[in-house]
């Protein structure tokens, strides 16, 4: 706990910082980077004869690299570019029928297992999909637009636009109430609002989001292969899979993993350094329900364009989800008759909770550590610590799993260790997402607030309880939801280690598919989606109630006044 000193002068502000965040940050950093680089190292150590020249000498490999870069850039550009107006529209319209549902669906899309997402996308956009009549009527689209580059980009936008828009919306909603009130009172126009309020909120977020989306698209596997229509469109990850599994060419696998690492990590460093340090704005009250203030830009033309953006989002997002739901409902009678379903669901939930909490703890430790470093004017170290958290994202799961396997050599006969290992790896894999969510909310106390808190001696536990926790609880809940549901739907990690006899929900799904049980599989997929939605809804509900302390409470009169102004 922080040692108590007398009131401090602003000059030596950083000197009074508790060293705890740094310690935790360093511990988390060591764990994450150690695990990531350790598994890569284990692979390199086993591999003999690394031939970097293969990358440009092997024609198909070069082609794959080119294509990967191209589709990932295109997908990122579209996902982020379109997410901005969508997020703005959602922020501008805090109340419309179905808004809640739309937000839930946005959260769902990222965590759907790719197999399920593909089923939904094909059911809607396929040659014989629901959209086929519309497509024929329009006549502009080719019959098989789902296959090839357009399909890959469509699927990636389906996955990533909602994620980006959701995080942008969160950033917009975190804007201090006072700013919106002032904007309302001044009657700022749309352009002025964008320049004064919206863009400054989004600007620090965009580079990070772009890096995240790019990395996800760069390493995408099943989607690129299924919709790509052939080996022309594949990612490095496919080549890596082949090298690792079929050829057992660990040298090539390590080379590919290193290439991927280099490209994505340099992008991350660029993004993180561009993201800039958090602005020292006067922070507002936490937990403010959005859009209480009248906005001049909410009427007129923007009413029309906002509807257009939101309808577009709904049209992108909802039909594939509905397709999964419909197939699931049809398949309900085909669900396994045995008792395996409920235990599988429970097992999945328990494991997801463990992984989610682990990811959250790591994320908070890393961010607190990097914040500490920044506060003590060591921006580079801060950057490295934060970047360390994204490392897992760029190390292919296959490399991580195999490397870990080489390091630990787990014996999976006795259930426990196997599951624990899966939880651990899932926690690490969910970390980058958890960090994205928490990071947006972590600028923390502004300098004046910090000085004030220091002067009043609000430090240590009290500071966390009364000043930091109230601002963090909702982002933390959202981060936990993302981390939990990512592990909930994850199959790849279990697949790496092999599964003991008792299956989790995604394993059950794959077993059903492997055994031709399509309808049952669809029902299981629907249940999985329902669980994911439940986790989000539950965590949202648990943290919705404003925290108990006096000064977040807005007297009703003031609210009324604000709306009238």
């Amino acid at each position, binding site marked *: 706990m922080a040692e108590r000193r007398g009131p401090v002068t602003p000059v030596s502000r950083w000197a009074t910082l508790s060293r705890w965040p740094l310690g935790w940050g360093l511990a988390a950093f060591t764990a994450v980077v150690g695990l990531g680089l350790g598994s890569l190292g284990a692979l390199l150590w086993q591999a003999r004869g690394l031939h970097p020249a293969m990358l440009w000498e092997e*024609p*198909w490999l070069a082609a794959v690299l080119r294509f990967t870069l191209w589709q990932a850039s295109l997908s990122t550009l579209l996902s982020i570019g379109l997410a901005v107006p969508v997020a703005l529209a959602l922020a501008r319209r805090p109340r419309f029928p179905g808004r809640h549902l739309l937000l839930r669906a946005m959260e769902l899309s990222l965590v759907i297992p790719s*197999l399920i997402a*593909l*089923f939904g996308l*094909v*059911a809607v956009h*396929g*040659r*014989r*999909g629901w959209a086929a009549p519309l497509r024929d009527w329009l006549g502009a689209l080719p019959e098989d637009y789902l*296959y090839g580059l357009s399909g890959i980009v469509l699927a990636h936008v389906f996955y990533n636009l909602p994620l980006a828009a959701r995080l942008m919306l969160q950033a917009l909603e975190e804007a201090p109430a006072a700013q919106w009130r002032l904007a309302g009172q001044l009657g700022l126009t749309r352009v002025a609002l964008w320049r004064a309020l919206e863009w400054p909120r989004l600007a620090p977020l965009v580079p990070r989001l772009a890096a995240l989306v790019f990395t996800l698209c760069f390493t995408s*596997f*099943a989607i690129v*292969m*299924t*919709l*790509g*229509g*052939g*080996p*022309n469109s*594949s990612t490095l990850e*496919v080549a890596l899979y*082949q090298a*690792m*599994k*079929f050829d*057992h060419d660990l040298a090539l696998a390590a080379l590919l993993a290193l290439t991927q690492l280099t490209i994505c990590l340099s992008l991350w460093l660029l993004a993180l350094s561009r993201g800039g340090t958090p602005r020292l704005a006067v922070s507002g009250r936490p937990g403010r329900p959005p859009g209480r203030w009248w906005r001049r830009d909410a009427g007129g033309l923007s009413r029309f364009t906002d509807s257009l953006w939101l309808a577009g989002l709904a049209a992108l997002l909802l039909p594939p989800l509905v397709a999964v739901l419909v197939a699931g409902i049809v398949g309900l009678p085909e669900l*396994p008759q045995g008792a*395996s379903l409920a235990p599988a669901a429970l*097992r999945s939930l*328990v*494991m997801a909770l463990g992984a989610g909490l682990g990811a959250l703890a790591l994320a908070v430790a890393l961010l607190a550590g990097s914040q500490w470093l920044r506060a003590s004017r060591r921006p580079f170290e801060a950057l490295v610590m934060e970047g360390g958290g994204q490392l897992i994202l760029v190390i292919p799961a296959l490399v991580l799993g*195999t490397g870990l*396997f*080489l390091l630990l*050599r787990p*014996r*999976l*006969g*006795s*259930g*426990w260790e196997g599951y624990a290992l899966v939880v651990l790896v899932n926690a690490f894999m969910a970390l980058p997402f958890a960090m994205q969510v928490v990071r947006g909310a972590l600028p923390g106390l502004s300098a004046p607030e910090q000085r004030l808190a220091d002067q009043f001696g609000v430090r240590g536990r009290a500071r966390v309880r009364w000043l930091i926790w109230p601002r963090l609880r909702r982002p933390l809940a959202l981060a936990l939801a993302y981390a939990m549901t990512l592990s909930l739907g994850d199959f790849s990690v279990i*697949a790496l280690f*092999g*599964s*003991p*006899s*008792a*299956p989790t929900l995604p*394993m*059950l799904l*794959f*077993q059903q*598919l*492997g*055994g*031709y049980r*399509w309808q049952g599989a669809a029902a299981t997929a629907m249940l999985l989606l329902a669980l994911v939605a439940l986790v989000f809804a539950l965590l949202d509900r648990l943290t919705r109630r404003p925290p108990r302390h006096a000064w977040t409470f807005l007297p009703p009169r003031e609210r009324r006044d604000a709306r009238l102004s």
Partner: protein
Amino acid sequence: MTSKLPAAGLALATLLAGGAAQADRTLTVYTYESFVSEWGPGPGIEEAFEARCGDCELEFVALPGGVDILQRLRLEGEGTAADLVLGLDMNLMAEARALDLLAPHGVDTRPLALPIDWDDDTFLPYDWGHFAFVYDTEQLATPPGSFEELLEAPEDVQVILQDPRTSITGQGLMLWIKHLYGERAPEIWDRLDERVLAVTNGWSQAYFSLFMNGEAPMVLSYATSPAYHMGVEGTDRYQAAHFEEGHYLQVETAAMVANTEVPALARDFLAFVLTPDFQRHIPLGNVMNPAIDLGDELPEVFGRLIEPKSLTFTPEQVRAHRREWIREWLNAVAR
């Protein structure tokens, strides 16, 4: 609140442990995911074997596919936890043998009823099937009767394939074409490319996400796939196209690990593989042909499947040339 914690912890422990009590004589079998599912052959086989051996316990560890079993074996080496591996197919045999981890099965192979002769003393077949193009009769009235007819088919006859780099069926097609066309294979790949709607990473994506959604009238699968649709779903809608020149054969095998701690039990299990008690779970459980003649116990729908000529390379040929053939395929279809 706190008093409930230990109870909750205990409940959690039993939940995660999946009730895997350790018996003294436990036979650990590495196999693939769909084999152990509750509708797969695993549970029935486990029950029958445990009834047979008395106080032993059969424990399956499921990996996604045969390639993963091999990979796991290779990573674990001498210290592997497996006593037995179930699910390495013919094309993986040579590589598995080269690991020097497996022991002879010592089982009398006379009951085997395979379309080819079998004299391997390490790998014991437990089922087999031909790769084939399954078609939707509602989209395609007359399927092509040969590769040539498929290549010459009208433009709307499209197929969904799997990638030979990531999928067993995809690799099967690669071997199939190579076997039929040899040097001409690249040219055939190039022509086939015109017919291809998608090349997925795995069989599940192709069959479930695409074919069952009606995206294309044909999908690369097994000649036994229609048996599931006819026998379990009760529909004749999906059938396999019979190619007159023959189909590539897949034989799935079991083998015991040399330094297992329970060699007698492992041998018992291998002997059990070729009995009706094991084999009766194969046809509709694993949707493959049983390795022995099941007589009346063979489901009637298996009599309605195509019976093509069998094509095979030896495991050693596959091992020697697979990478080169995959490169050939890549360069033929990648532009």
